[in-house]
């Protein structure tokens, strides 16, 4: 049963539509990550779930309750803000107990719940301090503690780790993941960091321009992106795209060639694809391998030798750049012509609308 359901949710500011009809089911205990570039509406969507923004159109269900017009405090949600948003004039324990106090819990209950949350987050020694006396990581823990004590149906996180330094971010990411397992709670998490998204999520929702581009498990999104946007957004470094023309088609295969790529036969369902169609071929940098006879051509502009791998930055004939990640250390001359080969089954063909074409056509749409 869905713990949280968005149905044709829209948001407009005046004449600008920022959320253009989102449908989403979040199951109980699921860790859902909203990911997308800045301005894609992911934070707005989260704030609509929290009740901090009105829902212009559509329905928001949390549990069995239609929550469109319910006060944020009564929705059974708890939110952790990017800026922590601690109450600066209260001690840590008062911060954590703020909601409990408002909800009318007795002093003993409050203390017991605060102690409990503090133990989970290992901040018991900080309870008497003011937020100004805490480090960034500790503040983040307090903010999470404030959410935990409420025992909400759904946790909402708005880029909670983006203010932390890199090392702390990795640590807190693991702790969040552990916390999710411990509490077994439903969590919705907004980030622009795809590593966070890939590592934390049970389900990723990729948003762009207020539209859900794809929903799925992290590895599905990586291996079978639904369109050009998702293919380009998920995975690092970014996927290479080559404009190609269809030159031949047969059962289960389409032959394409382009300016920078010699004729290759890509396994896909050829239905609806005509000879002469303009398409885009996507190949991940990790799938390209250096080979003097390979079909992909480029001029090496820069190499990054990281020891375990070598990243080749090439310029193609039509001026676009091309990235290849070799899983070994190797020295290359700058300005040299290079050719790359790849396994055609790893490449993804996109039609002129940007939709991916797979051999089995089992597309989530």
């Amino acid at each position, binding site marked *: 049963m869905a713990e949280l359901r968005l149905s044709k949710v829209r948001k407009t500011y005046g004449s600008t539509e920022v959320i253009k009809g989102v449908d989403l089911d979040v199951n109980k205990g699921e860790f859902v990550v909203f990911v997308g570039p800045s301005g894609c509406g992911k934070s707005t969507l989260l704030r609509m779930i*929290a*009740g*901090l923004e009105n829902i212009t159109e559509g329905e928001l269900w949390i549990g069995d309750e239609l929550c469109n017009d319910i*006060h*944020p*405090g*009564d929705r059974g*949600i*708890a*939110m952790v*803000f*990017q*800026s*922590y*948003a*601690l*109450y*600066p*004039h209260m001690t840590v324990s008062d911060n954590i107990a*703020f*909601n409990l106090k*408002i*909800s009318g819990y007795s002093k003993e209950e409050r203390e017991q719940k605060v102690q409990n949350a503090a133990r989970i987050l290992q901040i018991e020694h900080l309870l008497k301090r*003011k*937020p*100004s*006396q*805490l480090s*960034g990581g500790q*503040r983040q823990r307090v903010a999470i503690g*404030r959410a935990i004590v*409420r025992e909400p149906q759904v946790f909402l996180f708005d880029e909670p780790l983006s*203010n932390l330094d890199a090392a702390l971010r990795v640590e807190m990411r693991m702790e969040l993941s552990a916390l999710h397992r411990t509490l077994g709670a439903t969590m919705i998490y907004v980030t622009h960091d795809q590593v966070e998204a890939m590592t934390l999520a049970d389900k990723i929702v990729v948003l762009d321009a207020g539209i859900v581009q794809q929903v799925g498990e992290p590895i599905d999104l990586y291996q079978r992106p639904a369109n050009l946007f998702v293919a380009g957004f998920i995975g690092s470094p970014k996927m290479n795209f080559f404009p190609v023309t269809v030159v031949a088609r047969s059962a289960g295969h389409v032959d394409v060639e382009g300016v920078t790529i010699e004729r290759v036969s890509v396994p896909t369902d050829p239905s609806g694809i005509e000879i002469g169609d303009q398409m885009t071929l996507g190949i991940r940098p990790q799938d390209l391998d250096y080979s003097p006879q390979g079909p992909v051509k480029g001029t090496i502009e820069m190499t990054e030798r990281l020891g375990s791998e070598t990243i080749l930055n090439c310029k193609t004939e039509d001026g676009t750049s091309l990235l290849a990640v070799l899983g070994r250390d190797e020295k290359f001359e700058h300005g040299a012509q290079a050719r790359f080969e790849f396994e055609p089954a790893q490449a993804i063909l996109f039609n002129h609308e940007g939709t991916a074409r797979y051999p089995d056509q089992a597309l989530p749409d």
Partner: protein
Amino acid sequence: MSDIVGKKSGLVWATHLSVLALVIIWLIPTVGLFVSSFRDRDQISETGWWRSFLPVEQGLRGRASVDDVIVQGDTFVLTGSLFDDEEVLASVGEERPPITAFGNAGRNPGQFVAGEVADLGDGESLLVNPDGTYEYRLAEDPGNRGPRIYFFASTPPVFSFANYRTVLTADNMDRAFINTLTVTIPTTIIPILMAAFAAYALAWMDFRGRGFMIACIVGLLVVPLQLALVPALQMHNAVGIGQSFLGIWLAHTAFGLPLAVYLLRNYMIGLPRDIIESAKVDGATDFEVFLKIVLPLSFPALASFAIFQFLWTWNDLLVAKVFLPSAEEAKVMTVKIADDLLGSRGGDWGILATAAFVSIGVPLLVFFSLQRYLVRGLLAGSVK
């Protein structure tokens, strides 16, 4: 944070110097007022307060006594002591300050040095000794009124609490002090209470016409108070409040509200949005957000407005004159000082200085007790 390692800007010195200059500029009149408040009226009119620790040359006048005139040929000789003269006695009392100079004409009262015989022409001469004894030789019979003698006596500096006694024990001054507090305390608290609610709504609650209301309040800031005095008083009379303390509370509250709302609203809108939203997600209603989050965090703004409003109502004369009854028992200190002390003793600088000093005492106390709330870093630790 302010000083980048090892490098101290020359601006720091400029800042310190200008602060010092400001402190001195501010202190000089205050010290002057303070010193003057202990001085004697006559001494204040002779020398400035910065010379208050030096003896004062006080100009006096008396008449030569005609009680025992000795006639020597054509001349009439008058002798005696100036300090026996009634007029002199009235100003210096039993004291006998040394006389430094004298003269026989009011336009040049210190023409001659004490102890030397002054030739006045026409066979007349005058000698005044420092101890006050004199010998006046006249060519004509003085009749029954002796001629004038003007002189300067060097009086030592006098400091006393006499002025304070006068000011504090003036008729009903204690009553006036209580009246002033009766006006200032409610007129400081009422606008803050009202303005804080309004400011929160204007800053953080979404409703139609909010922008228009803010614009109106900014507009009200520039309405001169004088414009509203008569209509407001007429309205008070019409509804039966008339001239009363309730009336002046309402008047001061109304005149103070636009600034209060404007100041507080601008401060509150600067609080981090996330804190307020977080409190809402935590289940707080607008009232709880206001009471438990916004109000405690707005203390610096509340304190600065409280100081402004208190000082303004404490020093106010105009509104008090208009909205309070003119009866003696309703006079506030400013009215009391202006009417009673200045009206009857306009030239009495000692009283003026003392009254001024007494009336800045309380505002200073208020300022120093509230200034600890004017702190920076109140929001530290709340948001990154």
